[in-house]
């Protein structure tokens, strides 16, 4: 499978900015789970600052973040959660994919009677369907 246009990782943050889900799709990642926790902790702060110091009225925070190697798409839900998706620059339709991930979350995590709100997500069905969605 070519590496062109692939998804690198999915991260989900709860209302308090805590990491409740992370999934890497690239092999040999240099990360330990703890790194992600620290990293995503700063995301909410950066989001807020980017909204506050906008040169134009009424800006929300960061939606897309791009370097020359990859891009990150962020979705802040009405409930204050964050869904983050990192992918190759060429991957099309990231905002739509994020919406679909949010829908999967509502169907297979929230409606799971054993799932506790704001806690780490450990729902097998969600994992399986997420892989299907992205590949």
């Amino acid at each position, binding site marked *: 499978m070519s590496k062109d246009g692939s998804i690198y990782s999915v991260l989900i943050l709860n209302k308090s900015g805590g990491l409740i889900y992370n999934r890497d799709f690239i092999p040999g990642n240099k990360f330990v789970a703890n*790194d992600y926790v620290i*990293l995503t902790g700063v995301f909410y702060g950066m989001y807020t600052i980017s909204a506050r110091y906008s040169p134009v009225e009424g800006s*929300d925070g960061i939606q*897309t*973040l791009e*370097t*020359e190697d990859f891009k*990150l798409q962020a979705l802040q839900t009405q409930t204050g959660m964050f869904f983050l998706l*990192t992918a190759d620059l060429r991957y099309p339709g990231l905002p739509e994919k994020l919406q679909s991930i949010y829908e999967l979350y509502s169907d297979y995590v929230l409606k799971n009677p054993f799932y506790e709100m704001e806690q780490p997500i450990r729902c097998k069905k969600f994992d399986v369907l997420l892989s299907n969605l992205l590949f």
Partner: protein
Amino acid sequence: MIYRFLIYDKSSTCIYYDEWSVNNNGANKGVTPAAALDAEEMKRNTFGLVFELKRFLSKLSPSPTAPDYFSYTTNKYKLHVYETATSMRFVLLTDTKTGNMKQQLKKIYSDVYVETVVKSLEPRNPEDPSIQGNKQFTHELNLFLSSIS
């Protein structure tokens, strides 16, 4: 459309700042004391944001090196940062439709900053690294920015 431009030196000091709002054409640097304080806070926070974002991106990135250019887009504006090898940061805020500004920011560094500031024979005060008062730099910069907006 360019909204704001800032330059930070390697010690995180903001040495240049200008702002163009949608309503007026002139620079709008905060003339009242309260507004001036807000501007200082904005400059510091923008630096912090840029610094943290670069750390965040180097950790997440599949490539082993840290990016020298990156940008983010919100629903209302886009921020571009170019960091030189000497750890100076050129930060540009534009509308959301603007594309990749890496080459333009590099040019501001090499053709405007280096030519009018680094190569300048004017005495520089090490206590005050600001180039806000450097007329030659301001003139060349405004010429350049008009040509790209």
